[in-house]
């Protein structure tokens, strides 16, 4: 009987969908967007210049896109799962063949109206794809050789395509997104333990195969003061910026480290440094709280979803976003070596924002259609 009523209310009206919206998540995303705009304004030196304008446009377009996405039934997103993955893999191949090279790596592809970084999209679409892959799978089949091999291929294929760009950081993040799905799908613990062990053991050999600049990054991370004007410069300046922010920060538009161009990559990977310099520990904590709320809402939406696909997607997406945030922050705070990893929404960069917003869109859709069962 209970089930029956649910089945009858399967199709939701427009206003009902509105009612089903997760407004806390939406407000947090908008707040984050606003903060990112203000920070971008600051990186432009307190003027509305290219980065601010561009960031605003992207933010507006992609937020709208996210809202539209949330009205579309989750089952369509489910059905698009494999296609999206294949398309992005195609784009990655395209990038490999005729991508745009910038600062030593071929990461972008010109799609005539936009320069896209498919590796960023892959961070999300690999979750969609694997979530679909595991959706209907029985638990006893999850740990079969076939499943594991297939899922590994799904992960390793784009990873390989990203590594050759070369962009180790993003490749690792793609892998982490994929592994998150495997984790939630119920792959046996022992595989994770073996993988971690295997990774630790092979680390020295991996380092031996790293490219010189990657090796330098690791060495620099271990001792940034060794070459303060060379490789260690970014970490040192970033730490100085964050540390000099103090409890309340230097004030909006008053971050000397960024204004005077001591900060590297302040629009993208190091945006948190600038924010932290200007708004201090309190501001950074507030930003973290916003992120925590977002992740919490994503997980909560997952928990309240009836479909396994939505659940596994939300959990994995939540975990992935969490990892993106912590890796970026650990990097700028000197806890991890510098790997190119943007801070979701905050960092300048269309592809990253597009990917994140698509993720949010699917999560929103899962929330709006949380009673939707996917056959």
């Amino acid at each position, binding site marked *: 009987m209970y089930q029956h009523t649910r089945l009858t209310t399967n199709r939701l009206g427009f206003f009902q969908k509105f009612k089903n919206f997760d407004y806390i998540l939406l407000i947090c995303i908008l707040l984050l967007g606003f903060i990112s705009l203000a920070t971008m304004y600051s990186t432009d030196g307190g003027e509305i210049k290219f980065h601010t304008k561009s960031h605003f446009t992207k933010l507006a377009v992609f937020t709208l896109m996210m809202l539209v996405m949330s009205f579309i039934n989750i089952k369509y997103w489910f059905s698009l799962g494999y296609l999206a993955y294949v398309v992005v893999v195609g784009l990655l191949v395209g990038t490999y063949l005729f991508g745009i090279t910038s600062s030593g790596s071929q990461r972008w592809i010109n799609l005539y109206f936009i320069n896209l970084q498919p590796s960023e999209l892959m961070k999300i679409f690999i979750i969609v794809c694997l979530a679909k892959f595991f959706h209907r799978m*029985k*638990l*006893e089949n999850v740990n079969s050789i076939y499943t594991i091999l297939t899922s590994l291929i799904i992960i390793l294929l784009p990873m390989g395509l990203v590594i050759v760009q070369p962009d180790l950081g993003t490749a690792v993040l793609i892998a982490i997104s994929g592994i998150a799905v495997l*984790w*939630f*799908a*119920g792959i046996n613990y022992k595989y994770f333990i073996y993988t971690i062990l295997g990774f630790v053991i092979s680390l020295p050999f991996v380092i031996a195969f790293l490219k010189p600049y990657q090796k330098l990054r690791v060495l620099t991370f271990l001792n940034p003061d060794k070459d303060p004007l060379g490789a260690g410069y970014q970490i040192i*300046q970033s*730490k*100085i*910026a*964050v*540390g*000099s*922010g*103090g*409890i309340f920060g230097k004030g909006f538009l008053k971050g*000397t*480290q960024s*204004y*005077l*161009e*001591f900060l590297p990559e302040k629009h993208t990977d190091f945006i948190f440094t600038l924010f*932290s310099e200007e708004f*201090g*520990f309190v501001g*950074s*904590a507030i930003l*973290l709280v916003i992120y*925590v709320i977002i*992740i919490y809402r994503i*997980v909560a939406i*997952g*928990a309240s979803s009836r479909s*396994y696909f939505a*659940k*596994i997607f939300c*959990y994995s997406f939540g*975990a992935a976003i*969490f990892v993106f945030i*912590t890796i970026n*922050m*650990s990097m700028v*705070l000197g*806890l991890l070596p510098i790997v190119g990893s943007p801070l979701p929404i905050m960092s300048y960069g269309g592809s990253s924002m597009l990917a994140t917003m698509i993720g949010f869109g699917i999560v929103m859709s899962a929330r709006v259609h949380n009673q939707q069962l996917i056959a």
Partner: protein
Amino acid sequence: MINSSSDNVKKLNSINRRMFITGSLKFFIMIGIVSRLFFLQVKENKKYLTLSDKNRIREWKLAPVRGEFHDYFGNVIAGNFEAYQLHVIPEQVEDFRYVIYRLKDLLELSDNEFKKVLKKKNEIKPWETLIVSDNLSWQKFSKINNHLYDLNGVKPVISISRNYPFKENFTHLIGYVSQANQDDIESTQAIKKNFVPGLKVGKVGLEKTFEEKLIGTNDIERYEVNAYGRRISQLEFQKGEKGKTLRLTIDTEVQKLANELLKDKAGSICVMDIYTGAVVAMHSSPSFDPNLFVFGISQDDWQLIRNDPMKPLVNKTLQGNYSPGSTIKPIVALSALENGIVNTNFTVRCTGKTEMYGQTYHCWKKKGHGYVSLRNAMKQSCDTYFYEIARKLGVDKLSETAKKFGLGEKVFGNLFDIEKKGLIPNTQWKKNALGKGWLLGETIITGIGQGYIQTTPIQLCLMTAQIANGGYKIYPHIVVDDKVKDQPTDKFTPLYKNSKNIKIVQDAIFGSTNEVMGTSYRSRIDNPKYQFAGKTGTAQVKKITEEERELDLKTFQIPYEQRDHALYVAFGPYKNPRYALSVIVEHGGNGSTTAAPMATKLFKLIIDRHKIRESLGNKKYLEI
């Protein structure tokens, strides 16, 4: 369906369990991030704030304004003037080549100078200042100003620089400044602290001695700079302090007269207040224009000064070791009196020469002076008499008295690092320095200020001053403000055993100038206001051979380097003495004809100036 639903439940259990693990993991990682933030921003905040300021704030030090030298009357004798300079910041120039060639034409730079400028340009960063010219004439400076419209990025600048308005008059006393070199920076803390490129520091003389006081402190401009070192904005301008202005005891008028008197001669004049020890004039000749050194002396000028046979680079007043000649006689006489060797009635018969220890010693007067007492011997500067009393006295007693009166010791202590001690020989000294026993014959010539004995002009002046003031110890000084603290405790302690002896010697010196037959009788002034007493001296620079003695050549017949030095020491006014002086003219021939007439002119001026000096009413000055 049941199967699938039970599978679903299992799946849900599994995913929820794993979500729980993930959640806990996330929690701990988040704690880690927050604590890292807390560590950096709260705990280590100070450290990083300092690092951030170090990053963004850069200081530019500007050259400090150097303290001045004033004479006793407040006239600036080493001051500052506004030098017209031309600065270019290469980065702000659109077409550097055009501008620099244009400047070359306008400033009429030689190819050499031009090359130097280009070389400098290559050594600096494009936003740093290139000094094209550091001391432009007003004509060129205004010419540049007229052409500024097509000289973008060229900045005419007025900067403060050293100036010596009296040119060669004070060169040896004050010294000069010039660009600081590595040695200067390392040896003097104040220079190290205040150093900026192009800083001028004292190289010799008082400029060097009082460097720490004169140098002042930098103006400091604090700029915010960006990561590339470009100035963004000025945060602060901290005005530096001008160096301390030092007032000297010197009277410029007397100094100028000294310079005039010694014109084209090599020698020294110094004048001293016999009670305060204030040095009124101190000049060494020939001198040179210290302004030449301020912006770096040209090679030609330098060679000219360096190769001058009259040695302008030597401060003869302090560095010149001269045989005192007969100017030592007052001390010999005093020593003999003090030691009870002679009294005023003691006479010696002078025949023009005397045989002692198998050697012949000549008096300057061939015919001899006949029977002479102390007063007559001093008056006529009879050598035979002093041979005799020196012989009786012995060199050790003589040297004791001479040292008491300031000979053989640095007059200014550490004030000038170049000052020489002179030499007052005694038996002990010879044994130590030369490893030989003292010969009695050496005592005899020491009695007329020849032989080993060597004195500097300032020592002779001090000696005379201490005889003139009645035999009391004084400490000569040049800087007015300097004498307030650490007054030596033995100031004004008597140097005599019996004050009568000093009177006897003073009277004998008086006779030498103011009585017929006196050696400087022709230079006397009868007016009691100016009347002075002085002792001539003629120091041989080489031993006179028998042949030459027979020839009896006039001064002008002897080659310059072999002529005697002419000396004169004097004090006045005789009735109420206040000033003592010493004059030395190198190779001047004869003390009475060359040196003594200078004293006449000097005393006239000094005593006239005394009233003005007195009227300045410096309390510190009267405390004596």
